[in-house]
């Protein structure tokens, strides 16, 4: 009666252990030392397509895995000291953990195989590897472009739609483009300054002083621009140095801008001088106009003298006539008129003298009038020359204004360069931020790998636990078997 109770208890225990093993969702199977199945759980039945009753006592190569009957067979591996092997079946990957089974006297009585489907895990690893490779390729792309940049070549970073560093690359390309734009705009600025200068140099030689100032300033501009370009190329070699170089560019542009303003100031001064000269000439013209007026006055006076002379001539001719009539009267008076006739002759000769004098005065006045008109002509010519001079001085004024305008233009362009440089600084800061982003991503990748390793360790640990449970089950089964032998049934 006691013994029967003990059997029932053992049977219950076996049933419990069997149901525990059946509850495990992956295949667990045990064989004896000659590799014939002692036990398979439900998951194993499903995997090999045999029921427990059909499988018991049959050779485990009936599993028909691709490692069965090869040196990679789990038991062969264990015999070589390797407790883990892998096989593939129906497209899935499996990991096999093998352990020895011992009896109560620590004698090897068989093997335990725990099979785990590792397809998911491997897919995960594969995906991680793929991602890692893509990340490396992407970093190589970036590295190449920056290396090119350091050699002074603007090569865009190639971007694919699934690029892990899409944002970073886009920012890098933006930086490269704006660097390129900056260099191009600096070169264009230098060119436009050079052309402006040639315009200025063709201006009137009268403003040679102002032109020389512009030319020397432009020499400075060119020099400064070369320095900027060189410093930009250096900037590309070392991203860190870029910021300071850009500061230099900004400072240089500002100082140039100030110099251009100086040129503009000088131009304004020369404009003032030109205006003064213009006023002086205008005054000289006024004076010469006054001269013309005075000469005209003089010639009017001459013509009034002429009138007087004509009057004198008239009087002389009247006197002449009078003397003739006196002579006629004297003739009529005969002897008595003789003395009177002498007076009449004297009067006649006086009249002739005054007529002659008047004629002389008249010819003198004619001469003076001719000379005066010559003087007026030459003064008119001088006046015209002065008008021409005023015109030329106006030209100088226009040229000066042009110089001022050109200088202002140069100054504006340089201000733009300074603004562009400031923008560039901001872009470079963004590149630095993106680099920090890459670093963080790489750290995240490493962390994921660590987690994977931890997961694998956990699986391994649980497998060992299962093995020890199985060996206990086996022990119990054995003792149950021994007990039942004692009964005759």
């Amino acid at each position: 009666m006691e013994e029967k109770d003990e059997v029932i208890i053992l049977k219950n225990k076996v049933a419990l252990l069997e149901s525990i093993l059946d509850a495990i969702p992956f295949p667990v199977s045990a064989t004896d030392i000659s590799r014939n199945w002692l036990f398979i759980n439900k998951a194993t039945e499903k995997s090999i397509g045999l029921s427990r009753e059909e499988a018991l006592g049959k050779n485990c190569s009936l599993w028909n895995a691709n490692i069965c009957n090869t040196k990679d067979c789990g038991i062969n591996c264990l015999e070589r000291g390797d407790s883990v092997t892998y096989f593939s079946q129906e497209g899935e990957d499996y990991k096999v953990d093998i352990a020895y089974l011992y009896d109560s006297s620590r004698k090897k009585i068989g093997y335990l195989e725990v099979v785990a489907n590792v397809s998911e895990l491997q897919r995960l690893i594969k995906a991680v590897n793929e991602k890692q490779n893509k990340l490396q390729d992407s970093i190589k792309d970036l590295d190449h472009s920056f290396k090119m940049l350091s050699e002074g070549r603007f090569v865009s970073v190639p971007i694919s739609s699934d690029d892990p560093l899409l944002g970073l690359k886009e920012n890098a390309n933006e930086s490269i483009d704006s660097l390129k734009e900056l260099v191009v705009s600096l070169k264009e600025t230098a060119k436009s300054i050079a052309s402006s200068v040639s315009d200025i140099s063709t201006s009137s030689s009268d403003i040679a002083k102002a032109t020389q100032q512009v030319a020397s300033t432009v020499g400075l501009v060119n020099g400064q621009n070369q320095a900027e370009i060189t410093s930009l190329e250096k900037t590309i070699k070392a991203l860190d140095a870029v910021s300071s170089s850009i500061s230099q560019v900004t400072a240089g542009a500002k100082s140039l801008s100030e110099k251009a303003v100086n040129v503009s100031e000088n131009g304004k001064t020369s404009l003032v001088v030109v205006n003064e000269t213009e006023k002086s000439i205008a005054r000289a013209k006024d004076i010469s106009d006054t001269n013309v007026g005075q000469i005209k006055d003089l010639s009017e006076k001459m013509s009034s003298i002429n009138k007087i002379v004509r009057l004198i001539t008239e009087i002389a001719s009247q006197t002449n006539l009078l003397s003739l009539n006196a002579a006629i009267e004297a003739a009529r008076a005969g002897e008595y008129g003789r003395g009177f006739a002498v007076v009449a002759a004297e009067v006649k000769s006086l009249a002739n003298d005054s007529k002659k004098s008047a004629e002389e005065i008249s010819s003198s006045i004619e001469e003076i009038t001719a000379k005066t008109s010559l003087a007026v002509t030459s003064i008119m010519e001088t006046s015209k020359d002065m008008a021409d001079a005023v015109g030329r001085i106006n030209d100088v004024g226009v040229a000066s204004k042009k110089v001022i305008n050109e200088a202002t233009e140069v100054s504006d362009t340089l201000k733009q360069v300074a603004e562009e440089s400031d923008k560039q600084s901001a872009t470079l800061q963004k590149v630095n931020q993106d680099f920090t982003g890459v670093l963080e991503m790489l750290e995240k990748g490493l962390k994921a790998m660590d987690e994977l390793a931890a997961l694998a360790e956990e699986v391994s640990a649980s497998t060992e636990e299962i093995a020890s449970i199985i060996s206990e089950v086996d022990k119990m089964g054995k003792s149950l078997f021994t007990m039942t032998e004692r009964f005759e049934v």
Partner: protein
Amino acid sequence: MDEVLIFRLPNGLYAIDVAHVKEVISYTKINSVPNMKKSVVGIIDLRGEIITVFSLSRFYDLIDQDKSEKNIVILHSSVDSERFGMLVNQVYVVREIKEKEFEKLPDFLSSCTYGKVIIKTAKGIVIWIDIVSITEEVFK
């Protein structure tokens, strides 16, 4: 001894007896009148007295291109108190003429010029004309 008035016409110097001369005036505007004889120019108003003026150049058929101011010699007839004006180019002088200074004019010349004698002066030859015959011829 005679005294003559010497004057100029377009072709030379002429003289008349000063006894026929009332006075010499400068040129004044001459008013023309209808139906006049060839030599008559017109009439002038001399201090309220109307005087008929004739041109000696026209009387001699001389072409006058001299534009300078002319003189009018006022003559008075020896017979009556009637007066005439004679237009000449320019009156020069009243002179005494001595007998040894003049020569007789040839007959054929005398008839066509109404000249009496030729006076030889330092300024050249002067024809002394018979002004009484001329005025008779002009106003007959």
